[in-house]
Structure formats: structure tokens, C-alpha cells
């Protein structure tokens, strides 16, 4: 890492690398410091994080609920599966114009973009998780006289947690992609907006600075999900 950055900086200073096209570590650092001092980078990070977090929560809540519901009702499964697969195969960016038209150019459209990109992943993870429940464990519950909703609550939902959490980790990326694409298409603030504007102005160091900020958000989300996983599934750290 240090070597790459050093070589890059050296290349720029000796003129081997074109700073106009590729920027430089020092230039990127300059924008990070500048953005930190005037607070603009924090503002953009806050905006993007808010969109991502809301989209992440809504998308996962909706996806997990639907995914588990599909286990509960084979009828719902038959009804929804074609739509889910269709939605899953649409590149999310293709929905952006519709989302902007319906939800405006403010927070709502970014959250909706983020939600849409998360929901299918979350749904499939939850449904796979529910189907992974051990039929013998389910049988055990029935042997005790359990009703279907008890089997669902006591076996199916806990069994699917592992899958749901793998889905959550993937969903961090998807939520961020949704929010950033939303900002690309139409916005006045946020990291996606900053990257888009800086890119159009060939302000490469600022693009890099904003990318770093985006990565920081992603890492923070992954960290929180990891903590949540250990908190909610204390038995897992024992077997690993």
C-alpha cells in the first residue's frame, strides 16, 4: 500500500504519471483535509449514510419479512416468485428515472433506490434460510404438539438467521450502490453527487477523496452488522 502510494506520488512529481487524469495521493489528502476543515465531506457522508441506512433498513425489513412469509405460505411463493425473479434481474439503474419521477429528487428517491437494490437480495437470503431449516427439527417440534406458527418462530426463523446475516453483509454494498446511483441521477448533495460533479470537472483528487469517504461508510456498516451478528447469534462464535 505504502509502496503503491509512494510510487504514484513519485510518478506524478517526476511527470511520468499525468496528475490531471490520475490525481495524486497528496492532492487527495489535500481534499480530505479541506473537506474535513470546512465540514463538507462530513455533510456529504452524513447525507449518503442516511440514505443508505434507511434504504438498508427498509429493504432488509421488507425483504426478510417477505422471504420468511414465502416459506409460511406456498401460495404466496407461487404468486410472488416470478415477480421477484423479474425484479432481481432488472439492473437497478434502469429503475432510477421512474424512481426520480415518482419520489422526487430529495431523500425519498435515494432511499427508494437503495431499498430496491437491497430488497431482492434480502428476500432471497431469508427464503433460502427458511428452506434450510432441518425437516427433522421441524418434525421434532410437531412431535411436541407445536402449531405451524410455533414451528416458524422456534425453528424456521432462527435457522434462517445465518442466511439473513450473510444477506445483510451483501446488502451493505447494494444499499450504498442504490443511494449513490440515486445521487448520480439527480441530487444536490451527498457523496455520489460530489463524485459526479468532481468527475465532470476533472477534479480527480476530489473524486478519490469522496471514494475514500464512501469506503469508510461501507466499512462502518459492515462493522455494525458484524457486531449485531455476534450479539444476536451468541452460539455461533462457539462453533467457529
Amino acid at each position, binding site marked *: 500500500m505504502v509502496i503503491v502510494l509512494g510510487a504514484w506520488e513519485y510518478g506524478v512529481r517526476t511527470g511520468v504519471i499525468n496528475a490531471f487524469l490520475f490525481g495524486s495521493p497528496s492532492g487527495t489528502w489535500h481534499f480530505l483535509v479541506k473537506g474535513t476543515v470546512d465540514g463538507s465531506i462530513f455533510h456529504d457522508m452524513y447525507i449518503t449514510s442516511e440514505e443508505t441506512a434507511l434504504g438498508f433498513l427498509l429493504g432488509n425489513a421488507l425483504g426478510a419479512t417477505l422471504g420468511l412469509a414465502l416459506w409460511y405460505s406456498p401460495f404466496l411463493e407461487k404468486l410472488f416468485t416470478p415477480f421477484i425473479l423479474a425484479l432481481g434481474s432488472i439492473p437497478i439503474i434502469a429503475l432510477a428515472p421512474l424512481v426520480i419521477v415518482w419520489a422526487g429528487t430529495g431523500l425519498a428517491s435515494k432511499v427508494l433506490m437503495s431499498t430496491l437494490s437491497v430488497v431482492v437480495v434480502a428476500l432471497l437470503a431469508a427464503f433460502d434460510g427458511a428452506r434450510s431449516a*432441518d*425437516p*427433522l*427439527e421441524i*418434525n*421434532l*417440534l*410437531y*412431535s*411436541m*404438539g*407445536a402449531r405451524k406458527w*410455533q414451528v416458524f418462530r*422456534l*425453528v424456521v426463523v*432462527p435457522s434462517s*438467521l445465518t442466511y439473513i446475516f450473510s444477506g445483510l453483509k451483501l446488502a451493505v454494498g447494494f444499499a450504498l450502490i442504490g443511494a449513490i446511483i440515486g445521487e448520480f441521477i439527480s441530487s444536490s448533495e451527498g457523496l455520489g453527487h460530489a463524485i459526479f460533479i468532481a468527475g465532470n470537472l476533472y477534479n480527480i483528487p476530489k473524486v478519490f477523496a469522496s471514494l475514500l469517504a464512501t469506503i469508510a461508510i461501507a466499512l462502518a456498516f459492515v462493522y455494525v452488522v458484524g457486531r449485531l451478528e455476534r450479539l444476536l*447469534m*451468541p*452460539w455461533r462464535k*462457539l*462453533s467457529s
Partner: protein
Amino acid sequence: MVAESQRVVKIEIRNVSMVFGDDTDQPTLVLDDVSLQVRDGEFVTVVGPSGCGKSTLLNLLSGLIAPTSGHLFLDGKEVVGASKNYGYMLQRDLLLDWRTIQSNVTLGLEVRGMPKQEARALAQKYLKFYGLDGYEHKYPSELSGGMRQRAALARTMILNPNILLLDEPFVALDFQTKLVLESELAKSVAAGRRSVLFITHDVEEAVSLSDRVLVMSKRPGRIKAVHEIHLECDRTDPVSARNAPGFGDYVTTIWKQLEIQTSALDMEILKSLNLAEDIAS
């Protein structure tokens, strides 16, 4: 004492046949016209060579799968879909990974709506009885195979089931642990009035625990012989059952009927093993 023939039938399999893969080119007949009855308070064991379909019997009774033909009854009710209200133990302990030992034991009580405090107090008694006190807050992954199966036994017995369906519950355990758990099973069966259908390929286990042993043939599985077991000993003690007069004769007869490809040498080894156990005890 009610005459045996008048006691209520608690578990019944009536003319059940089972074909697997009947939608493929090569359907396999697994069970061929199997019938059996377990009356109230009886301990009946089915032994058979592996692949004879004996585990299928239990899957049918629990409603996991439906028979190709024939009828099954638990407690007088025909089995349609998932059966309810019986004790169920398999080779796999089926402890839920995400619940502590204590809450695995209280699982059935929770299903039946017993208040938490009461359920925990009762679980504590069973955990103590099965030698698991001190482990109540551990997760299953922290316990040995023997301990896990004890917890499964506690989870089963706490519901005081009058019907028990058991499929090789002790097969994966070492010999000592197996004897201890057999004894605990025998005691709790003797204490309550339970009807047991036990599936195993272990002939000694079958003879030491059962009132009756049914021998199944190789696939397609049929009931080929029935043995009423009479041993003059304390039947809750599997070691004394193994030493009782006549035990060896039952074992030898049933072994022969199992038609496992045994050479004369194997039989010699078997006999010397029995002898070794005699010396050990």
C-alpha cells in the same frame, strides 16, 4: 393385570408398503406389507440389517412421509400429515444450536405454553436427573455427544410422553455411555406407563431393553420373526440383562435371522466378545 391381548393398542402399523422413486424408471420397494402393534406399556424393538427400511417405519409414523399403501395409527388416530404428541428421539440429537441446554430441554414446555419460571424449575430437575446440572447455560456445540444425547433424553422425558418413537438414539455413543443411557431410558419407561417403538441394528440392545423383538428382512423389509423376550433379571439394568440366562440364546438366534453375512470366524469373535463382557462385569 389385564390380559395382554386386551390392552389398548397405542402404536399400529397395518399392512404398510412403501415404494421410493415410483415416479422414476427404477422404483424401489422398501417396505413390503409390514404390520405391527405396540400395546399400552409395551417396549417393542425392530431390528434389521441396514437399508431394510426400519427407519422408514418411524418416518411414516411421525408423518414425515406418507406410505404407498396401508395405514398407520398413533394413539388410535390415523396418521395424516405431521403426527403430534409423542416422544421422538433419533440418532441425531436434534438439539437446536441457538438454544442453551436448558432452553432446549424446556422447548416442548414452551410449545405447550407453560410459564417460563415453572418450565425452568422443572427442567432443572430433569437436568439434574440426567447428570447435566452445571451445563444448563451452555450451548449444544459445547457438549460431548453423550451429554448432548442426555439432554435430548431430558427434553423428551420432560413432556412425559406415553408414546415413544426411537430410532437408534444411542448408536453414535461409546459403549459405557450407551449402557448408562439405556438404563436411564429403561427406568423412565418403567416409571411411567409408556409404549415404545425402538429401532436399532444392535441386537444386544434390542434384547436387553424389549418385551418383544421384531426381526426385519433385507430389502424389501418384511417382518420375518417375532421374539417375546423373557429374562429373569432387573430389566432397567442393561448389564444384568446382558448377563441373564437365555440372553445369549436370544442374541444368537436373532443374529442368525438377520442374515448378515457372517462367517464361522465372525461368530467365534462374537462369542468371545460376549465372554469378554462377562469378564468385564
